[in-house]
């Protein structure tokens, strides 16, 4: 089956600044795909490129089979998007924005709308400007889900949400979207979310995909070793990354196997792998 999202050596420059440096990525249909990265790694630029909000610089990018910057109305109908800032019209009432969006989507599901309104406890007559952060995110999610999109793109949607709201949000993704086999592409730096819902993860650092695969596959790429304080600089020069714990170092698992006498090691957790890839590990 064709990939829903496909990037091949995708680059994006803002003037002289390179923000995406040759991204290769495939997202299969029905996958919940998490894009992990630190602030400034290029997550938002990648998502904006995938949405056709900004043009790519070089390389190839295809979303639902089309170049995003050339998206027509029909393709936009198949993509739902929730951003960190939501960007809803604060002067509108909940009912107004629902009606506004409903008029634009032929596949709009009224039953689903009613369900989510009930579930999220959203007041139809409330002005969006008066809603709490959590409620605004839920409303944005409702607006993205009600048209039954084939692809849902979420850009750090849970930033600033309290744990209860985060839980509720994840439940929707976990249960409803997974059950309907919809493709979800979301960016985050919250690893707990990723572990809970994602089937596939990409770690983006400095405009490059440092690791790609399932959580297990990514964790297997990094090992945790104990080294003595005297050898620390030697390990660091070979690409090792200190975790902050005494004498504990993260190291490239493949590289470790090439050593004649590999030290005792343990598989890394996702947090540790994330730290490894986002601290300059595996630079080559």
């Amino acid at each position: 089956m064709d990939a829903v999202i496909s990037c091949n050596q995708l680059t994006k420059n803002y003037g002289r600044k390179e923000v995406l440096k040759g991204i290769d990525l495939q997202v299969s249909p029905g996958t919940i795909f998490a894009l992990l990265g630190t602030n400034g790694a290029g997550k938002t630029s990648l998502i904006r490129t995938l949405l056709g909000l900004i043009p790519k610089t070089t390389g190839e990018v295809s979303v639902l089979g089309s170049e995003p910057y050339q998206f027509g109305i029909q393709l936009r109908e198949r993509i739902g998007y929730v951003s960190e800032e939501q960007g809803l019209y604060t002067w509108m009432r909940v009912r107004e924005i629902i009606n506004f969006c409903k008029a634009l989507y032929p596949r709009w599901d009224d039953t689903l709308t009613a369900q989510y309104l009930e579930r999220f406890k959203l007041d139809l007559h409330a002005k969006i400007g008066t809603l709490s952060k959590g409620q605004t995110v839920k409303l944005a999610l409702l607006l993205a889900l009600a048209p039954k999109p084939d692809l849902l793109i979420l850009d750090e949607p849970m930033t600033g949400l309290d744990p209860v709201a985060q839980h509720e949000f994840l439940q929707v993704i976990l249960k409803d979207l997974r059950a309907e086999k919809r493709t979800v592409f979301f960016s985050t730096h919250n690893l707990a979310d990723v572990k809970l819902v994602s089937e596939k993860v990409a770690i983006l650092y400095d405009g490059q995909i440092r690791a790609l695969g399932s959580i297990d596959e990514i964790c297997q790429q990094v090992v945790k070793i104990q080294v003595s304080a005297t050898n620390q600089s030697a390990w660091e020069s070979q690409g090792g990354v200190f975790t902050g714990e005494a004498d504990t170092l993260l190291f490239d698992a493949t590289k470790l196997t090439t050593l004649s006498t590999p030290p005792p090691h343990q598989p890394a957790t996702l947090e540790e792998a994330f730290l490894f890839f986002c601290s300059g590990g595996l630079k080559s």
Partner: protein
Amino acid sequence: MKISKHLLQKELKQNIVIYLFPFLCLGIIVICNKVLNGWLDPKWAQILAGAIPLSLAGAYGLQAFDLEENNQTKDFLLTKPLSISQIIQSKYFSGLLFLLPAVYFWSLTLTPKVVRFPILSDFSSFFFSGLLILTWLVYTTSFTVGLYIKGPLKLLGALLTIPFVASWFGLAWFQAIAWLLINFSAPPQRTEGLLLLILITSILIIFFSNLAHFLNTQRLQTFKIQFTKRTLVDLSLLFILPLFFTIINQASRPAIRPFNSIMTTIFSNENWFLASEGSKQPHGELYLFRNQSGQLGLGKLSQKPQLIYPGIKTKNNTITELHWAPDGKSFTFNENGQVKIYSLRTKKTTTLNNGKMGLWADDSKQLLLIQEVTSQAVKTSAGVIRQQNLALTLINPPYQQIPSPKWQIQSGSLSLGWDALHFELLAIDHSWQLKLLNLSTHQIKELPLSQPATPEQIILTQILPWPQSTDEFQLLIYSFDQATLKSKQHDYNLHLYRYTPPATIKKWAVINDLSYRDFILKNDQEYLAQTSQGIYWHYRLPKGEEK
């Protein structure tokens, strides 16, 4: 071009406060003006009625995308199943939907007189349509600037671009309308008029194709336009064409023009002096004009006539029968049935008496006052003519009283002249004859004027002193061929004769198929010909016409 109804509704709701703001301001001004009993000077009202809509146009255009940018709703909108052109169109047209009525209501409330359909013969009637066009241009320009430039640069860009573009296009339109007015009704300028039409059409096509191009293009992403060669070529054309109009308009100027400067046109209360009939000063460069409002103006060639006599009544004032004294220092005219003398030196008017006209003797002092005693319509072979019983009175300076002698004559004359040297009254009537009434002997002499081969109906005659001559007269007969009347409703023939007293008449020239409204003799070769009110062109006798 398909505008989403929901999007348009959203735009209107989103911007309702700023859209209603000008109406609110207008309401406050009207109430203040009423409470403070005419606090707003009419001049300021006119300035406000023009300046506020133009400022609004700039502001509306520039801020069209600001609310989306500032509230970070841009991405929400752009990721919805809407084309970029739909988004831009809805923003563009929602602004226009409020802006144009705002212009209308501001003008209607503050300067109701200017709100009217443009009439080709009246330049000032173009003010409102010009304002509408200029507002639209400023709005479109600022809207485009708003697309191109972001952030603090926007204000700077707007400050530099909008006044420049507005004045540039304003100038273009001013020049275009002036051209249209001048050329449309001027037979010798038909080719240029056609050229003008082609140019205006090209401007409109270029402008609208650009508009359609930028509203529909798929290259417009995230509210930014990509410059292409085509855009640059079109923009260059748009900027070069006004220059073309300006140059061509300056190069091809009429003899007498009704126009003020642009600034005077927009911001002054000065009334237009649209000359409708004129007469040249003997031995001088001045031209005396009357207008339809019963005012007198003096002007030199290529100038707008300056008002010298405002008339005694503001409404329905009638001034006719302009007759220069041979020395060119004063003239007589008839104002509402009274014969008056205007002196250029004192700039004062002296009322002589009730009468029809005052004809000067060659000493520029003695006058022959002609009064109509009775008048009746009489049916003759030439049609219905007006038979007049005229009283003639010689008046000497200082014109305070009417001395004797008086004469009474029966005349069906269309025009009169006075040959003071031979003491004869000259008259031309419908019968193609010059009648000479000797005021001493009371004898009437009839001299035939050579007629065209096919009979022609006389519609108007003039007896004027021959240019640069004190004892000869020019006789002008305007006539039309009855057989071709239907096919040439507006055209007539002009027969010119030279009368040398006491009895020599030579046919001097015939000009066929004229459509001018007034003919002023400049010299014996050149004329000023009026094509529409206020606009006179130089006119030389066509070759072969002179005899």
